[in-house]
């Protein structure tokens, strides 16, 4: 197990705006823009970075930035939580001496579609052969498939799903960079356009452009940087299945149940230590699954927990305080933006700042319950 707090985020930057569009930058331009901003935050330049991680081609980004050939390269690509895995691998690499200063960067032209390779594979792929032919049209009609089962087994209702969107819109209203800021009600959500029953438009994430980057180094070196270190206490990762229909249990994520508990036990924390929580919300059921699979609530309690206001501003467990993928931004792979909000909350610089955040958990999903990654941050080194 890596040392608790043995590494830290010393640079962080995000490129997200309220229009959801950054039409002047290609995907590579976004990756580089966020990377340069994060390096500037850390007071360093490309020549000071000896490790790189991104989804896509790390060589392209490293060369484009003008880095010297790095001693550590990570191109892990398991969907939107890939950046949690990049952080986890960076922690291990720094502890093992593979690199000293690692850049994790992400940029995605999800809305403008500039310089972006298409999603999906050919007809020969397993997903096409065993799921594609049934009439699926991407995540809104796929990621949502398990939820009817969850609702039947737990008594969770469409009103509970709507309450997730309502709570997060309230957070988004406090965030100038959120795309959707106007308050909404449960009725607004339940009256919005049907996308894939039981999921309506306001239960589905945005599609935007965006970018974000982190600089990670050892805690010992962190004091040499100008920023307040955000220590990494524990990390977790896992994968379950590339096809949502092949989940072992449609009402539980096997990947969540490895990544989350591992991160928290490595961090040496319990649920009551967590002051701030991010759970990747591509759709309204993700925070519900996440709260339950990570053990914050018991079986079937997550919907009522959110509907009762516990995750809203002023609630006892502030959740998705940037507004989340539902209301803040979602460029396709959202995990980086969850990490950025966690880092801001621990630094004390978030738009909707929660008082006295000591321990923040950032939990990501990749694909459709395919993968997961969890990071525990703190402002204190144990």
């Amino acid at each position, binding site marked *: 197990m890596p040392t608790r707090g043995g590494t830290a985020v010393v640079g962080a930057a995000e490129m997200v705006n309220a229009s959801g569009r950054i039409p002047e930058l290609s995907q590579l331009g976004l990756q580089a823009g966020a990377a340069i901003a994060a390096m500037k935050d850390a007071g360093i330049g490309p020549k000071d970075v000896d490790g790189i991680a991104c989804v896509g081609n790390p060589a392209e980004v490293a060369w484009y930035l003008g880095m010297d050939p790095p001693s550590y390269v990570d191109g892990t690509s398991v969907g939107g939580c890939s950046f949690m895995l990049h952080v986890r691998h960076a922690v291990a690499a720094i502890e093992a001496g593979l690199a000293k200063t690692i850049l994790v960067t992400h940029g995605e032209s999800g809305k403008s579609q500039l310089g972006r390779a298409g999603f999906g594979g050919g007809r020969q792929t397993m997903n096409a052969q065993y799921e594609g032919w049934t009439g699926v*049209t991407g995540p809104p009609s796929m990621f949502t498939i398990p939820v009817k089962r969850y609702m039947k087994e737990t008594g969770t209702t469409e009103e509970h799903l709507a309450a997730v969107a309502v709570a997060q819109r309230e957070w988004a209203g406090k965030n100038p960079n959120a795309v959707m800021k106007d308050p909404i009600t449960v009725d607004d959500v339940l009256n919005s356009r049907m996308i894939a029953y039981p999921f309506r438009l306001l239960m589905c994430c945005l599609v935007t452009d965006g970018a974000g980057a982190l600089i990670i180094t050892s805690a010992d070196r962190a004091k040499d940087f100008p920023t307040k270190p955000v220590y990494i206490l524990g990390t977790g990762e896992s994968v379950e299945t590339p096809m949502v229909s092949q989940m072992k249990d449609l009402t539980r994520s096997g990947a969540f149940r490895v990544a989350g508990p591992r991160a928290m036990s490595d961090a040496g924390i319990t649920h009551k230590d967590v002051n701030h929580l991010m759970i990747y919300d591509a759709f309204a059921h993700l925070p519900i699954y996440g709260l339950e699979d990570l053990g914050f609530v018991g079986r079937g309690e997550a919907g009522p927990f959110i509907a009762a206001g516990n995750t809203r501003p002023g609630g006892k467990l502030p959740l998705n305080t940037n507004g989340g993928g539902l209301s803040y931004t979602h460029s396709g792979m959202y995990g980086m933006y969850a990490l950025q909000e966690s880092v801001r909350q621990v630094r004390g610089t978030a738009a909707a700042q929660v008082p006295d955040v000591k321990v923040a958990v950032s939990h990501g999903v990749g694909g459709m319950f395919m993968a997961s990654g969890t990071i525990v941050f703190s402002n204190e080194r144990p």
Partner: protein
Amino acid sequence: MLQRSKKSGQAYFPPRPFFPGDPSQEVEWFQASGKATLLSYVINNRPPPGFEGPVGLCVVKLAEGPTMLTNITDCEQTPEALILDMALELAPHTVNEEVTLPLFRPAKGG
């Protein structure tokens, strides 16, 4: 047709030339019962070309154990008609000489 372990009889899906988790076990094809139940679904309001109107994307649990994604035919594609745990039976749909899709329909006579 499904595959199973010769040793334990445990069925698995999708097919592959080895038993998942223990490649040392011999595997074989066998004739499945065609019986299943409806485990979960969404109704895609905007399906791709080739589909007429909203289509239920249904995870069914085969009597032999594995789950698979399919469509339920001979059935309204509505929440009122698609009832979780309803009994289903195989309704093979021939696309062409090479491809037959494993659709399901509500079981007749239980």
